[in-house]
């Protein structure tokens, strides 16, 4: 990715993503309970939380996939739910747990994503080639995505999210089932993207990864933000994992299960 982002923090700085009072309930269960969050432009932001904390629901509402019951989200100052088309131009998203058009080849799928965004044919063709090489998918560009492994599928979805050089990347569980080599590869791409002024939001429950990779982090549990700030502020002297367990609570119960040691 060589796309420049010259507009480094202006005055006053507009956050890359601003969530305002986002809330969503599914039946009797409140999945997201009024979340406010500012993601500064140019940051590498981690969203961590236990399973079922509302991470995916929050990110879906922030990216225009799921209509919130209350509140809204702003991408670089553009209201996602008032001007969805404009906001969607600014971001690339990798949703978790959704299918791809997997009867296309990898190359066709990324091309499709580019053309859907109304991009020029030549630009798409050139970027698709570079993206596939950068993600080490060049050798399988002509294979149907349905025959890809889980990790390759994640990577091709990432390529589809990057094709239009978005200013904000929202990645839900991007490293799930990705092998360490590919993960390092993806991390390198994301880091240079952030270095050139882009903003990345990743959700994950691998604390080590977030601690190493992100500069900011928000801890979500039970549909609320428990803490948010820079990684160093949040963790203090402890590791992020310890701090996380401390914030979310529980986890230290090791009595019981004696039978597991008796075979």
């Amino acid at each position, binding site marked *: 990715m060589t796309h420049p982002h010259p507009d480094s923090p202006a005055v006053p700085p507009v956050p890359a993503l601003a969530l305002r009072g986002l809330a969503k309930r599914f039946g009797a269960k409140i999945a997201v309970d009024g979340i406010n969050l500012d993601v500064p432009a140019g940051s590498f932001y981690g969203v961590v939380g236990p399973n079922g904390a509302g991470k995916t629901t929050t990110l879906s509402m922030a*990216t*225009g*996939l*799921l*209509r919130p019951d209350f509140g809204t989200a702003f991408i670089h100052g553009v209201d996602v739910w008032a001007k*969805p*088309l404009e*906001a*969607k*131009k600014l971001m690339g*998203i990798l*949703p978790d*747990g*959704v*299918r*791809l*058009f*997997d*009867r*296309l*080849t*990898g*190359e*066709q799928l990324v*091309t*499709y*994503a580019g*053309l*859907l*965004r*109304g991009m*020029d*044919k030549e630009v*798409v063709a050139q970027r698709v*080639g570079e993206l*596939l090489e950068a993600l080490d998918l*060049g*050798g*399988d*560009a*002509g*294979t*149907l995505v*349905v*025959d*890809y*492994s889980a990790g390759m599928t994640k990577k091709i979805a990432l390529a*589809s*999210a990057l094709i239009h050089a978005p200013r904000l990347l929202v990645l839900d569980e991007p490293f799930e089932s990705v092998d360490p080599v590919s993960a390092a590869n993806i991390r390198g791409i994301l880091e240079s993207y952030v270095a050139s002024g882009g903003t990345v939001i990743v959700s994950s429950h691998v604390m080590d990864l977030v601690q190493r990779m992100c500069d900011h982090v928000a801890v979500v549990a039970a549909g609320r933000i428990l803490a948010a700030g820079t990684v160093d502020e949040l963790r203090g002297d402890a590791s992020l994992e310890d701090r996380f367990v401390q914030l979310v609570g529980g986890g230290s119960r090791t009595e019981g299960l004696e039978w597991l040691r008796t075979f």
Partner: protein
Amino acid sequence: MVAHLLSLKWRLLLNGVRRSPAQLVGMAIGALYAFGAAAGLAVALVVLRWADVQTAHSAVVLGGAAAMLGWVLVPLLASAADMTLDPARFATSAIPMRQLLAGLALAGLIGLPGAATLVVALFTTVTWWRSVPAVGGALLGAVVGVLSCVVLSKVVTTATSSLAASRRFKDVSSIVIFVPLILMGPIFASVVQGVSRSTYYLPDLARTVSWTPLGAPWSIGGDLASGDVLAAIVKALISLATLGVLFVCWNALLKRALVTPPYSGGSGKRGGKLGLFGLFPATPTGAIAARSLSYWIRDPRYAASLLVIPLLPVIFLFQSAQAGSYSMLVILGPMGAFILAWSIAADVSYDNTAFALHLATGVRGVHDRLGRALACLSLAFPIVLIFAVGPFFLTGDWAWLPGILGLSFGVLFSGLGLSSIVSARYTSSVPLPGDSPFKKPPGNVAQTLAVQLGGMGVLLLLVVPEVVFVIVQAATGESAWGWVTLGIGLVLGPVLFATGIRIGGGWLDRRGPELFAQLIVNR
């Protein structure tokens, strides 16, 4: 263990209903329908109690055999195989095969079709309420017969869903199996006609069928009522042997299905070939059309519906040859147009959650609708043209050509417009991407049915003008009315097409996230 499986099935049924009010309503409609059908058949069986033995015997045997055929064909044809207790899910839980089979077979009775069949079958004991042995025989026959129905349908679905492990083979086989199934009509018709030429063919047919595995269990009660003990014993043995053989087959198929490892991808292929994306204009609409058309060819769920098309003329030619008149062939054009236009009414449901890409890229609703409709149109237009013109080379009645052309294109364009609206607003429960066209997720089948039937009703209303003038031409014999039909079809059709695209596109723009939320429910 059997009890566990039964309670699991019951729990799944209840929880499926609990998932959304729509599914509760769907389930209620389905239950009402099943109850009505079962009650009607039960009353008929009670009435047969006072019929003479011969008639009652024939009716019960033929009805039972038809039910058994239904249990084979419905899962295949309506792709409504009940996969709530997919045996593959028990692969890791170390359940003894014997108990697994028994549990799954009995669990097949929980649910509307199973319960309805069981109740109706048990009513045959009322029909044979003529002597103690007859009632006993009918009871045995009913139990064995219903179990055979369930196991037979399991054997067929297991066989078709585990034909081979590779995706490519699965794709091809799941399409190819449609051919004999669709041609079954003509095949069956010729068999029936052969039989019907003989006098008193129904009792004869029943007598023959009663010696086959299909009819044997349903015949035991009747044979005992008419005092033919030997025949009853032999048929009881046939029924039990059939059930045994079916269990053995199922056991073997399931064993193979459970240990066959999933197919892991082939060798890598370099890129450079964009396929249809190179042919269509590089715009959102063009890209969507290219993607849709690729799916028509590559996705067995679409390809299967495309395969029906060339078989239509075969079926009609067969029937015309039997009837000795080719005039019915003219319906091919409108019918092909109807099937093809309506086939994209569940387009977004077929995308499943992959639709997220359209939502995320902020593609405009109109582009989405138009691309999908154009992909379908590029296939449908030549096909409908051939279907509309072709029959006239056989009938020679060219005066009807303009009218039939007008009706065909009216149906095609109006249908595409309506489909574009329906698929932007309503989801249907369809086989998931990658699944065989036969496999269907459990749940709101009734909602799907309501959407499909309602949509088809509206489509009939939309083409009323064309239909009226076709009727006028038939009534007056004045061929000028055919040209009026053609004019209406070529004007009204495209107008409704454009309107459908606009309305559907607008709905998609406004309700995209809501539509996506519906898709996630069916994931």
